[in-house]
């Protein structure tokens, strides 16, 4: 049975490459190289759109960190799952107007739409691209690193491998292999390959989340046995803590309301709205998102985190039991211990599948963000510097960006473990959603209100970004751990979501500056509003194909 993890991993990786090649073959006949590479010719159907949005929404966080929080803190962190219905509503309410006008006006990146409305200013385009990069870059690096750690978990008995005469740890070998495969299928097939691989990865991830909960409940004697064990846990784990304790109600509310929206307006998701075939696709995606994901969390991995606490209780001094060095390992520990014992060979296969699913969660986030980074670098930077570049040239430039970004991410992970560079990127990663949230005020203004001005939008974005920089861990890097400012923002962070704090300042500055400056002219605003509402023309500028 030792070979099962190898076979599972090989089948999975071959499947990804095959889907990448299929994406390339499908896109070869496309008339518009750029729209096809970045948006799959705006023809993605329900299955692809819903699973690629779900898979991009969740990284390894879904199956490792979230249940780890439940293991450490009980039921209160489960309330963070209420961000899922909020995100589901946003998929249609924000996503459908974005899709509609994106098709009509040929947008590819978020900055295309924002700069078009507020006036084609290089500065606002650059700001939006910079915010997008602040979200995307740390995600790529950290997901590549997570993939390496998971490869180590999949083959715990292999300490190192030798490649071209050089000895590599299993983690570094995993980083190298996963980076290479992810880079390959993103380069060859663009959005189509990314989305198709996300379908495979999303299905694996959702099945693993649900299955792990079901098996754990079965192992503890069904629902009654499970909850009998859970009822013996400390009361602190089964009741909501008061502020400013971790996972208090205030933080849960602001996180659910704003972090979910921040994840929905980040560049990779925004581009998925442009890529959706029609409004029915986004409507059905919202339905799938709002029903399937909460089930997989609330009746799946959350139960593993809570049940894991009864199986592996923490020590009296609050430290972790033997065999766990981090709460994030609880799902892996539970499935590795229980599945083979309960299910024999099937259990061993399922353990391998779930570990591959965890890897898939990281890869699906990394590939989507790599692809979005390529689009942002090409459309918002390269095309602005070299306006005469044709679609094909831009697409090849985008592919080069993917190669450089992947090599840089793998290099940082390989060389930077424990260094300041990796620590800094990790600090940005923890605030990625807070940066992305700063796009919300202008997104809401241009879709629903259209009262803001370009100066207001820029001032709001800058103010929001500065506020996020003041919070730990970035604030601590800039001003030192002991500074009064960081101490103050640290206290505020315990109470409220950081993105929300930045967004409040962003919105106030946006409204005040817009009040005293000139908004885009009325005709422009009316034409924009019309395109947000009207149906796309049959002979639209860009082709529509089924994906």
């Amino acid at each position, binding site marked *: 049975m030792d070979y099962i993890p190898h076979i599972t991993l090989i089948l999975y990786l071959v499947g990804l490459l095959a889907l990448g090649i299929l994406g390339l073959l499908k896109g070869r006949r496309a008339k518009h190289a750029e729209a096809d590479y970045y948006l799959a010719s705006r023809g993605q159907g329900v299955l692809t759109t819903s699973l690629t949005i779900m898979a991009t929404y969740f990284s390894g966080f879904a199956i490792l960190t979230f249940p780890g929080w439940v293991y450490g803190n009980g039921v209160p962190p489960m309330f963070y799952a*209420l961000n899922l*219905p909020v995100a589901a*509503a946003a998929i*249609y309410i924000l996503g459908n107007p974005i899709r509609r006008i994106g098709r009509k006006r040929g947008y590819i990146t978020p900055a295309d739409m924002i700069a078009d409305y507020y006036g084609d200013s290089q500065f606002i385009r650059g700001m939006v691209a910079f915010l997008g990069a602040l979200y995307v870059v740390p995600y790529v690096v950290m997901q590549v690193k997570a993939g390496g750690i998971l490869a180590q978990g999949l083959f715990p008995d292999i300490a190192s491998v030798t490649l071209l005469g050089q000895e590599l740890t299993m983690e570094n070998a995993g980083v190298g292999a996963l980076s290479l495969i992810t880079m390959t299928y993103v380069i060859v097939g663009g959005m189509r390959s990314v989305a198709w691989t996300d379908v495979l990865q999303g299905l694996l991830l959702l099945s693993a989340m649900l299955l792990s909960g079901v098996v754990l409940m079965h192992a503890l004697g069904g629902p009654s046995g499970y*909850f009998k064990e859970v009822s013996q846990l*400390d009361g602190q784990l089964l009741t909501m803590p008061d502020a400013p304790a971790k996972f208090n*109600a205030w933080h849960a509310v602001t996180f659910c309301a704003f972090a979910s929206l921040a994840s929905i307006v980040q560049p990779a998701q925004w581009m998925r709205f442009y890529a959706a075939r029609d409004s029915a696709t986004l409507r059905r995606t*919202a*339905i799938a998102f*709002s029903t399937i994901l909460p089930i997989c969390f609330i009746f799946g991995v959350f139960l593993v985190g809570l049940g894991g606490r009864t199986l592996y209780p923490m020590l009296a001094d609050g430290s972790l039991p033997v065999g766990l060095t981090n709460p994030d390992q609880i799902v892996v520990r539970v499935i590795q211990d229980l599945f083979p014992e309960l299910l024999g060979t099937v259990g061993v296969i399922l353990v391998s599948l779930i570990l591959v699913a965890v890897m898939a969660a990281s890869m699906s986030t990394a590939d989507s963000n790599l692809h979005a980074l390529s689009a942002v670098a090409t459309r918002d930077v390269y095309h602005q510097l070299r306006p005469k570049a044709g679609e094909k040239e831009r697409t090849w430039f985008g592919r080069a960006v993917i190669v450089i970004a992947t090599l840089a991410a793998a290099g940082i992970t390989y060389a930077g473990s424990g260094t300041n560079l990796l620590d800094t990127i990790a600090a940005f990663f923890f605030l990625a959603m807070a940066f992305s949230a700063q796009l919300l005020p202008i997104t809401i203004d241009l879709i629903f209100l259209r009262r803001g001005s370009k100066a207001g939008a820029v001032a709001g974005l800058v103010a929001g970004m500065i506020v996020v920089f003041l919070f730990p861990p970035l604030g601590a890097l800039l001003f030192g751990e002991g500074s009064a400012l960081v101490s103050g923002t640290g206290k505020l962070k315990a109470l409220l979501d950081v993105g929300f704090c930045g967004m409040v300042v962003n919105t106030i500055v946006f409204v005040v500056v817009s009040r005293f400056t000139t908004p885009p002219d009325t005709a422009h605003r009316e034409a924009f509003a019309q395109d947000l509402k009207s149906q796309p023309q049959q002979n639209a500028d860009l082709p529509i194909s089924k994906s």
Partner: protein
Amino acid sequence: MTDPPTDKLRPLRIRLTVVFLAALLIGPGLGSHLAGGDPENVRFIFGVPALYLWLVFTCLVMTSCILIAARTLWRDED
């Protein structure tokens, strides 16, 4: 889908928005404190921690709002 006249849907749109936002605020907020009890006196319903059941209920309310909106308010226009 058949499109009902927009003005007739306005009351439904308002009701769904209010219920959804109320669930979002009260679910993790005040409701969670009332439902779960305190650490010395944890509430259980049929042996299940009441806080967990409250989460399931809140999520059900929010998801129902989306399903109703998707069936009635959100139109397939193309």
